[in-house]
């Protein structure tokens, strides 16, 4: 068990290193001056040259990567917080956390704030949205997937399958607009937007309802189909026949013998949904004007906020790798044939 975990953990660290290099390379090794990319097209050439000089952007890439990584993990101070730099560029780069700490993502030049001041709040908002959605998607998918897969071809199987396909094929923006038209414009039960402020007269929790609904409907359709597929396969297997012919009742057969085996394959898929819910919900957030991570990413991309994009990409990557790590462990726990060795 311990050996399995440590082995997995080492591979996670290696994956993280590779991923961080890819992120670094995408922003800092693409053609053009790094300083120019960060300062924007209206910066003076002298400022760009100064920054290239001062922050070592002309050094070979491996030196820059080591420095970049060093700043990120807090092994060295961020040179940008040197008052000299701020003076020369006519800005102030002051992070209340100091110049050297773990997870130092640097400064967003576009908003003139440390990236950490902006990104975590947005991430927390999306985290709540994703958490609620995930907590609903999993039981709903398992319940309906199992029900459908228990008897392939029955009327409820067909109903659930068709429902699942419809739910997945409806694009999020269409679904969002429908729901707004029904519940907000039509019935007036829910707010049409979710800025997460009580200013509009709607309590904060009501503002979560529709984004969650969109995500749950859109995503469950897919996961239900995965669970159903796995369940039909399990129910057709010989060991289920063995269980039935032991004289067990059907509900017992399903819960004792079917469930765990049917969960092995969809488990990984469910864990993948978490990644989607964190970094793939741009559309839903835009529809409801939800101040989340996706919206932030979109804004940063439009404004070419390099430092912010780097940070957001890194966080998404770390999150994805960690869920995969958890999902690997869970998979091994569910499936004794893998074994925690």
């Amino acid at each position, binding site marked *: 068990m311990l050996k399995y975990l440590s082995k997995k953990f080492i591979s996670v660290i290696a994956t993280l290193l590779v991923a961080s290099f890819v992120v670094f390379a995408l922003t800092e090794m693409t053609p053009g001056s790094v300083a120019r990319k960060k300062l924007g097209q209206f910066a003076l050439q002298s400022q760009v040259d100064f920054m290239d000089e001062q922050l070592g952007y002309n050094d070979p890439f491996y030196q820059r990567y080591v420095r970049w990584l060093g700043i990120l993990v807090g092994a060295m101070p961020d040179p940008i917080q040197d008052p000299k730099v701020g003076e020369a560029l006519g800005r102030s780069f002051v992070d209340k956390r100091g110049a050297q700490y773990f997870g130092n993502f640097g400064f967003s030049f576009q908003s003139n704030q440390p990236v950490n001041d902006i990104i975590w709040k947005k991430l927390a908002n999306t985290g709540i949205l994703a958490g609620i959605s995930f907590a609903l998607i999993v039981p709903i998918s398992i319940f309906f997937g199992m029900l459908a897969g228990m008897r392939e071809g029955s009327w409820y199987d067909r109903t659930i399958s068709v429902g699942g396909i419809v739910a997945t094929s409806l694009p999020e923006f269409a679904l969002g607009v429908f729901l707004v038209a029904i519940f907000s414009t039509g019935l007036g039960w829910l707010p049409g937007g979710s800025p997460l402020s009580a200013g509009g007269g709607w309590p904060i929790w009501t503002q979560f309802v529709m984004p969650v609904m969109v995500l749950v409907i859109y995503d469950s359709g897919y996961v239900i189909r995965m669970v159903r597929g796995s369940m039909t396969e399990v129910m057709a297997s*010989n*060991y289920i026949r*063995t269980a039935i012919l*032991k*004289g*067990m*009742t059907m509900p017992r057969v399903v819960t004792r013998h079917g469930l765990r085996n049917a969960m092995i394959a969809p488990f990984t898929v469910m864990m993948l949904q978490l990644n989607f819910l964190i970094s793939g919900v741009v559309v839903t957030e835009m529809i409801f004007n939800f101040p989340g991570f996706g919206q932030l990413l979109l804004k940063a991309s439009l404004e070419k906020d390099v430092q912010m994009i780097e940070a957001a990409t890194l966080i998404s990557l770390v999150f994805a790798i960690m869920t995969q790590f958890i999902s690997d462990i869970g998979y091994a726990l569910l499936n004794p044939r893998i074994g925690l060795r």
Partner: protein
Amino acid sequence: MAKALLEIDRLRVEYSSSTGSVVAIPNFSMKVQAGEAYGLVGESGCGKTTLLMAILGHLGARGAVTRGSIRFEGDNLVNAPASVLRRVRGNGIGMVYQDPNSALNPSMTIGQQLCEVPMLHQGIRMAEAMEQAAEMLNNVNLPDPGKVMERFPHQLSGGQKQRVVIAMALLARPRLLLLDEPTTGLDVTVEAAVLDLVNDMRKKFGTSLIYITHNLGIVAKVCERVGVMYLGDMVEEALVNDLFASPHHPYTRRLMSCVPRLDGNKHTTSFLPIPGQPAPLKLRPEGCGFAPRCQGYAVGWCNHEVPVDQVTKSHSVRCVRWRETDVFETKTEEIAQPGTPGDRPVLDVQQLDKIYYLGGAMKAIGKNSRQLIANHNVNFSAKDGEIIAVVGESGSGKSTFARILTGLEAATKGRILVDGKDVASKTLSHRSKEEIAAIQMVFQNPDSTLNPSHRSGHAIERVLKKFGITKDRAETTKMVEELFSTVRLSPWLKDQLPGRLSGGQKQRVAIARAFAAEPHILVADEPVSALDVSVQAAIINLLLNIQKTQGTTIVFISHDLALVRHLADKVVVLYLGKIMEAGTVESLFSPPYHPYTEALLSAIPIPDPTAIQPRVRLAGEIPSPLNVPAGCRFATRCHRKVGTICDTTPPPDRHGDDGHIISCHIPIEELEKIKTGLNFAVVKSPALKKTAVSKMVAQKGAVKAKAASKSKPSARS
């Protein structure tokens, strides 16, 4: 007569499909008395499993009993309420399944799965159920039940799993046990042990059995009464001795002549495979179902409803012409004409070793890594046109040897001379085209060897093009058709996808593919072990016939000694990668025997209920090749162990007549003295003579057929 335990009366089972319903079992009646062991025999697709599922009320969503009754201890099980079925399932009727690998839940421990049964049927607590489960595991001869119960199914061997499944069925103390081909896919030694176990358990618990199999040898060992099923009909039913002494239905007779026997080689006996295959359920013929494949088909008789005829009080047969079988059963086109080996050496294996080094990191720093010794000091040679069989249980290194020979892997040491050139250390990428073409292989499972999305002729076309045997498209097509006719397949099948072919047809395609390269050596790795006996017989005859015309050397890898006896010129017995015994078929199947060969022989189910077989059973399982015994490799399981010398010193090769080699500490004279009781001359049965006679008849032509058949009644008496 006492009331029967199970009584099936005029049962009809149908499956519904989108195109209408098909009849799986038209009209079936049988009785099983309390304490009786009943065998049901027939090829795949004859409705045996459907019958079992009908008994247990588990036909699935599409199947239904549309007429008749199934009475078990008085209760009618047809359309019985769920509560009755639940009581009968497990508690009254237990079931042992064909494939123990899939019959157990992979994510529950053995203990959890076992103790469900008593908890369910006796309403007892977990701890008590665990105790019962442990006791039952003891009963089925699984050592250390406590450990076994903590394991998951994938941590047990196939034989162990089948014991668990049997224990699971017996835990409910059923009065009737249904066994659905429980030993198919297991090694002969394991099969013999499982059959012993079934017999012992029967004595111990007085359980009745219905044993389903396509292997008549097993029936002879286990059952008292036998029913032969064809297309859902009971075509013949008799006491086991009567059936084997005088089979009357043409189907039974042909089925019997497909079973390999230990009392003849390829020159003295020949299989008489049944032409064709069972008709699909949709195309069930009018009248007798076997009619399309029967030599005695007579218009006006066989295409009408066939009544059941009583031969004796206990022997019934469903054939209008059963009295005339001697007249119409004369010749067959598919009879084998085996060739004889030449003098030119083709294959010479010298001191071949194959060692896998595990634990790569340790190897790099020079530490002694774990060694998996798959082959050790393997020596033998073969001439052109010779069939050399390599036999042994699973894990004996047979397939590793095949992989090295065909170039899928390189040997660690030693030489393999093919036509005088050493290929031992050359894998496929290092071999020339000619060297690759010279050795071709036929694999075990025909279902997975052909690409399901390519036409079945495609693989052969590739071979022809790749080795430059044909020049253009027209020539290739012609050649493919020729090869198809060589393996007795209609040429139009070459454009069909493998999914539309039966198992036997697929294996024929695989054989045609192998012969397309015009090989000097054909390596056949268990080519028939996944097939029904009747299909197996046809494939073996085919191999023998092609081999005769092409003069190919065949390395035939098998765990079935009876089949080897029937096919090979020379035999090599492998155990844990080392040769235990080698010699000609005649010398190997007569004393002196190596103790391992002796055990293998005694495990073969002989298709003769009167044959008395010595019971030599190997204890435990074949040891791990990671940790081979220091002395004789077989010492840990040997029943003739002489003493510590067996554990410490590798045995010498002792030489007998005719190149016969036995690797054992016991001198050959001593081994000769051991009367194993495997004196096959004593085992006489009319079925043997029949095949012998038929063989003779086939060779001498149909003119003398009548004379031969006339001589038979005397042979039978």
